[in-house]
């Protein structure tokens, strides 16, 4: 089994090298036929990587404990869904998943472009397969997922109970879809530079890739937060931990890229900037993998000591240096076709949004690597606390939230004063009305940051609604369509724009959720015997009896809690603690009662023999808004990427361009 897996990876490594060579060779005059050969090799790499994944999964499912990764991360008693997800529990396994996804995406890119972008494709193939060469070589020669044990154990160690959770099954793959998906826009950008085809063709070809990868990365981050919230029992979902930051940074830069490409499409500006962003995004994806794999930040983190660091660092440096050299050599071709006409215009707002997003990414980067820098400079390992990140994020986040509303309302090139007044009267009135309301609801001016988020959120939402209203009214009046029909047509005719607005609504909801849950959370520790009651943040908690149980794997203590507000029962919660026999590991089972406006979150800390239950109670307002925001953002992104109905006679080469023109900005 080990042999088959290793062979598949080695062959994939060889096929990837061949693909790179053939793709580059096909660029020489008279060697076009090699292009097809290179593309077949891409399918070959995908097939071989799939075989490798299949072998790994077969090993996990059948309990082939001669494999180290099977013995260390699964056991015969592990339920089969978790045996599948145990693949990405190990380091080599998660790299295998990375490489497999890369080969899958490369195959999809080759297939969907088999008749388009023929000039770009050799370089696209060479870049994607070059990355595949790196990963398959690491998997073959540095850390093999098919490493065997000298002594075959009768039973595996099992998967960490913290990871036996549905969110953990989908969070890593989603994150990886994001990371790896962003390799495709990067490859197209390099191809455009290489071949000097620097019009907007490459951008349009990868628009969907970028949005989908961005969406998965964002949802992956959010699901990770949700897992932490439900599983870890500290009542929060985000801690500015280096690994969280590692996923957050490429997401920020990819967000900037999604916006600035529109300026290039529309006005022919920011070409160099866009190249820099796409290179930066992918480098940060690799950097994220590097951070979690290298152990450079091991003093805060539990990643096993690993020898992978230098390889990844080398890869990142090579990619950055190569891409930068390529960009510099192509600078004359990347000249802007237009210049900024006014500081109050759509393109200017996009520019501000880009500066803020990249600035925030830089601040997060700075805070993340500060310990490494300080150790190098002063010999003392100094880290920055959560306060730094909160303090930096707040003003930038507020400014971004304002721009989210303002941007789409301002016209391209130059906005006139009269137009601005006309468009912003409504949203400004809405914000003014919101001020006293917010102050009443939140109970005063003490939480100015959260109050600012709420008021700006209302303003931004009003901006978006007024945009939707304006578009609907125009369609209703001009087309003689019914109101709901006009509204639907709006989305159908310009998916990208109005899908984007839906994403913006999701962003407002997300920010409100973050502000509410960060500023208004309360917590309290209670020690209650049977029948006793305690109070946290206006909720009365009653201990309705503890229980102890056990089965073959674990011992469980649990307590039943009634939650009352104003004399009425609002929830019954059963927090518990499991103690696993084999590993002697504790596992806290949090109980949460969610409502739209707050979560009551209860952790059982312990239950003594004398039936005294110690519990920690958190009342977290608006946490549910975060998860709702994820759904709204996903919906908006889906609208934006949903294919427009094809015109009856689709001419092949120009189809992409005319389709884009029909979709407008």
């Amino acid at each position, binding site marked *: 089994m080990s042999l088959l897996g290793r062979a598949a990876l080695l062959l994939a490594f060889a096929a990837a090298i061949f693909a790179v060579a053939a793709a580059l060779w096909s660029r020489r005059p008279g060697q076009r036929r090699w292009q097809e050969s290179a593309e077949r090799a891409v399918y070959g790499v995908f097939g071989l990587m799939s075989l490798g994944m299949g072998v790994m999964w077969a090993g996990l499912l059948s309990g082939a404990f001669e494999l180290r990764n099977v013995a260390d*991360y699964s056991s015969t008693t592990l339920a089969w869904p978790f045996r599948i997800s145990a693949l*990405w*529990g190990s380091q080599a396994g*998660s790299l295998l998943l990375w490489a497999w996804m890369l080969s899958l995406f490369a195959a999809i890119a080759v297939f969907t472009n088999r008749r388009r972008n023929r000039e770009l494709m050799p370089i696209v193939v060479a870049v994607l397969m070059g990355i595949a060469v790196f990963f398959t070589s690491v998997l073959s020669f540095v850390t093999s997922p098919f490493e065997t044990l000298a002594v075959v154990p009768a039973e595996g*160690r099992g998967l*960490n109970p913290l990871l036996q959770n549905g969110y953990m099954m989908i969070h890593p793959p989603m*994150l990886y879809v994001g990371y790896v998906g962003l390799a495709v826009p990067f490859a197209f950008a390099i191809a455009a530079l290489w071949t000097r085809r620097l019009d907007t063709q490459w951008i349009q070809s990868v628009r969907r890739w970028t949005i989908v990868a961005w969406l998965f990365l964002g949802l992956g981050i959010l699901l*990770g937060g949700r897992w932490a919230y439900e*599983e*870890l*029992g*500290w009542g*929060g979902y985000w*801690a*500015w*931990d280096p*690994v*969280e930051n590692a*996923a957050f940074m490429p997401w920020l830069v990819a967000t900037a890229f999604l916006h600035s490409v529109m300026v290039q499409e529309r006005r022919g500006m920011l070409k160099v900037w866009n190249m820099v962003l796409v290179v930066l995004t992918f480098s940060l994806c690799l950097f994220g993998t590097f951070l*979690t794999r290298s152990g450079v930040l*091991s*003093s805060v*983190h*539990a990643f*096993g000591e690993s020898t992978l660091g230098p390889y990844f660092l080398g890869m990142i440096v090579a990619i950055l240096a190569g891409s930068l050299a390529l960009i510099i050599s192509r600078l004359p071709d990347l000249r802007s076709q237009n*210049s*900024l006409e006014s500081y109050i215009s759509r393109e200017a707002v996009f520019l501000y949004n880009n500066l803020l997003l990249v600035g925030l990414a*830089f*601040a997060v980067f*700075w*805070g993340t690597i500060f*310990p490494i820098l300080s150790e190098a400079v002063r010999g*003392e*390992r*100094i*880290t*920055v*606390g959560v*306060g*730094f990140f909160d303090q*930096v994020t*707040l003003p*930038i986040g507020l400014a971004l939230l304002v721009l989210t509303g303002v941007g789409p309302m301002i016209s391209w090139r130059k906005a006139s004063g009269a137009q601005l007044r006309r468009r912003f009267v409504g949203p400004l009135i809405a914000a003014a009305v919101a001020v006293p309301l917010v102050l009443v609801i939140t109970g005063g001016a003490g*939480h*100015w*940051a959260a109050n600012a988020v709420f008021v700006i959120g209302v303003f931004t939402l009003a901006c978006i609604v007024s945009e939707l209203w304006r578009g609907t009214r125009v369609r209703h009046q001009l087309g003689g369509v019914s109101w709901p029909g006009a509204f639907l047509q709006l989305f159908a005719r310009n998916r990208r724009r109005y899908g984007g607005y839906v994403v913006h609504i999701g962003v407002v909801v997300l920010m409100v959720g973050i502000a509410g849950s*960060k*500023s208004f*959370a309360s917590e309290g520790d209670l*020690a209650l015997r049977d029948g006793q009651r305690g109070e946290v943040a206006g909720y009365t908690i009653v201990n309705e009896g503890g229980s102890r149980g056990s089965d073959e794997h674990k011992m469980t203590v649990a307590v039943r809690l009634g939650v009352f507000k104003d004399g009425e029962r609002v929830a019954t919660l059963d927090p518990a603690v499991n103690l696993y026999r084999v*590993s*002697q590991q*504790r*596992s806290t089972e949090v109980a949460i009662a969610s409502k739209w406006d707050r979560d009551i979150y209860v*952790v059982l*800390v*312990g239950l*003594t023999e004398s039936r005294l239950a*110690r519990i*920690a109670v958190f009342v977290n307002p608006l946490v549910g808004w975060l998860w709702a925001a994820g759904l709204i953002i996903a919906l908006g992104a889906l609208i934006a990427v949903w294919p427009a109905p094809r015109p009856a006679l689709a001419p092949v080469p120009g189809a992409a361009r005319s389709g884009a023109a029909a979709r407008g900005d």
Partner: protein
Amino acid sequence: MRRARFAIALSLAAVLGGWLVWTSIGGSLETYSSPAGLQRTDGTTYRLNGLVAAGAPVDAAERAQGPDGLRFTVVDKKDAESRVTVVYRGSVPDTFQSGREVVVTGHMRDGVFEARRGSLVTLCPSKFKAKPGEEQQHPANVPKTPVTPT
């Protein structure tokens, strides 16, 4: 002219951003240290890193919520003679036990390390072979975020 104005606007933004980062970083510095490195008693915030000495209470989570807090000893990873007593309150990670590597944030007072509430983080020692990889493990070690509006 236009270019010059643009350059000025950009550098202004850069200066503002730099100022923001600088002032924010000032108040939140924490120095990594082993038990022997906890020299300053002027309120310097340390992230103490070491191993939980033998004899840590089994009911750690309950004690950390009790009136006296959880008391345990952290020893240097290499030098077993170098140790410090820690007083801690707040949530205790499930993996806390004697021999585990921990990071805890706080400051020295009267020869005792006073930990910040909820700052206790456990690391997986590399010997513990079931080291789960990357994202899956990390939040287990995440300290509790202080819920203070900024």
